């Protein structure tokens, strides 16, 4: 191996310009790949963090995933039921306190009750449909980041005013609302309720900030026309990624539809998957393209060194040993290029993180989110090294297959 290294090093070190071009190609590929990975994952993680912070990790609703199984279906295998009469069912989760207590016994997190309904906010001649969520501030702080998202007022202010509500900042801006203003809420059954704005919040998600209002559970129940009903339990977990598993267990335990944040945003997450695929394809292409420089260099060297290859083979060096010389050359170019690529990648990531952009969703100027991960460096480096070795293999194989006698005769 020392001989192989010795010859390989001699070849690359005596072709400084070509070697540097090859290394620069690899460095650019690796550097920009790391930058793209950091940028892509950074923005994705930032978005998901906002999403996870804003939403409950699991929402238990007073609904079933499917129509309850009918006795006939249980009795016979080939029964198909349709247009089943709607059996009167009381809205809301039955015995919510008991359910919450049983969940608190095992879920890795906490649970809070809420009342979710829709209403129309009527103010200044404008009427806008909104989602009204009735909460209990004592429990809410355990399951959401609403308290930290408050821009004006506090959660506890809900209890200090008559029918107090907390309004999304974007909605408040649209209606020209300020804290202390009184608005009228109109429920689905025509219920009207004058409410006082006691606070403004900003979640960072425009669709939430434009349409969400929080109140105590009482006013929300009035708007729904169902006094004393809790129709939603919201869970916050220590590990948001376990939400799907926990949701399934909760649903199995309670029988109520339990939706994880992943399920609620399945369309969005599938978009991320497509985006990941596209970006990974582009990054792979970048790394592959960067190895073309290595291919060119090794092709040139093998062409120039046909005579040396012949003589090494005639001296008794095995074909694979000679082939390994050129692969080692590519690896040398690759390794040095990767090291520079890592530095370049880090500098690019740092540079991008200094750039701020206006986020139309939140209406704020924020720095580009970069995710720094050793895995980006390892994966980019590993793939690049494989591409370099692969790029060298084919010209090396072709060159070392030449019969030494042909070259020696040709040179004589």
């Amino acid at each position, binding site marked *: 191996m*020392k001989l192989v290294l010795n010859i390989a090093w001699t070849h690359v070190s005596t072709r400084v310009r070509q070697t540097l071009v090859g290394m620069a190609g690899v460095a650019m590929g690796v550097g920009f790949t790391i930058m793209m990975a950091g940028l892509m994952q950074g923005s994705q993680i930032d978005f998901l963090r906002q999403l996870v912070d804003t939403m409950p990790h699991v929402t238990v609703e007073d609904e079933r995933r499917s129509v309850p199984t009918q006795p006939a279906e249980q009795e016979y295998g080939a029964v198909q039921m349709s247009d089943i009469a709607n059996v009167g069912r009381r809205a809301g989760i039955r015995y919510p306190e008991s359910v919450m207590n049983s969940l608190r016994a095992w879920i890795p997190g906490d649970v809070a009750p809420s009342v979710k309904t829709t209403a129309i906010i009527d103010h200044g001649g404008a009427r806008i449909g909104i989602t009204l969520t009735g909460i209990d501030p004592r429990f809410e702080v355990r399951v959401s980041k609403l308290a930290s998202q408050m821009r004006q007022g506090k959660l506890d202010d809900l209890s200090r005013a008559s029918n107090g509500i907390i309004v999304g900042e974007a909605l408040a801006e649209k209606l020209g609302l300020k804290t202390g203003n009184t608005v009228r809420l109109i429920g689905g059954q025509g219920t009207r309720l004058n409410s006082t704005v006691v606070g403004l919040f900003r979640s960072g998600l425009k669709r939430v900030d434009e349409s969400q209002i929080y109140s105590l559970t009482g006013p929300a129940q009035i708007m729904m026309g169902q006094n004393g009903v809790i129709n939603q339990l919201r869970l916050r977990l220590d590990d948001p990624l376990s939400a799907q598993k926990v949701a399934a267990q909760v649903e199995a335990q309670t029988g109520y539809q339990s939706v994880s944040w992943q399920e609620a945003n399945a369309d969005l997450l599938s978009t991320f998957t497509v985006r990941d695929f596209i970006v990974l394809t582009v990054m792979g292409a970048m790394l592959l393209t960067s190895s073309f420089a290595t291919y060119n260099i090794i092709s040139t060297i093998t062409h120039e060194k046909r005579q040396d290859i*012949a003589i090494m083979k*005639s001296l*008794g060096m095995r074909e694979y040993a000679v082939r390994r010389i050129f692969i080692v050359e590519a690896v040398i170019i690759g390794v040095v290029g990767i090291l520079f690529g890592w530095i370049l990648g880090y500098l690019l990531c740092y540079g991008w993180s200094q750039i701020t952009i206006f986020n139309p969703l939140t209406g704020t100027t924020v720095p580009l989110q970069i995710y720094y991960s050793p895995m980006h460096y390892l994966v980019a480096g590993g793939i690049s090294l494989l591409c370099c070795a692969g790029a060298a293999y084919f010209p090396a194989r072709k060159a070392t297959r030449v019969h030494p006698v042909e070259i020696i005769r040709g040179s004589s």
Partner: protein
Amino acid sequence: MTDIALQAIGLVRRIEGVVAHTLVNGIDLAANKGEFLAITGPSGSGKSSLLYLLGLLDAPSEGEVIICGQSTSKLSESERADVRLTKCGFVFQFHFLLAEFTALDNVLLPMRAAGRMTESEMRERGLSLLDSLGLSEHANKHPNQLSGGQRQRVAIARALANRPEIIVADEPTGALDTASTEQVFSILRDIADEGQTVIVVTHDPALAARADRRIHIVDGKIAETTERGVGELILETGK
């Protein structure tokens, strides 16, 4: 224990193609240990082709080569490479030294490929070989800093590096001046006198006459074999 270092039995080398051509046509020969064998013949007679077959650089279409009692006909390409590395040393008309390496590194090349000695042992042997060929002052020079004769002597040192049983030389003096030619032939003669078998292809009849035995090839066949010391006695005539 046999004294035969190399034996060729019924060697045939054909070039297949649109126009088939026979380079070597049924040659039988044996070279003893320590023998200096010269192969002569006109251009295109097949003497270099024969040499490449004897040195296992090329594989025969028919027949076989036995080196130090070991048949090589069923060896794989890698096994043939191993035999070349350890039992054969090659010297070509052109030195074929690796340009980026010093004279010493070129001599070390076969030893490093064989990997049977430590680095210090290899360097010691390399320097000793260069010294014995009068090149000790040029050990750290690159081929482009050496004369033609010096380069060819480095190539001979490289051929001797692994102490091969057989030295195969294809017109080693073909590109040298008279003084260098004399020097190289003396070296090859000395190598044979020390017990290694030397097989040389040459055009030069005067030099061939200094070999222990001369084989003259015509049209891929042995036309005549002449043994030194018996005058120009023709021992065998080609059919």
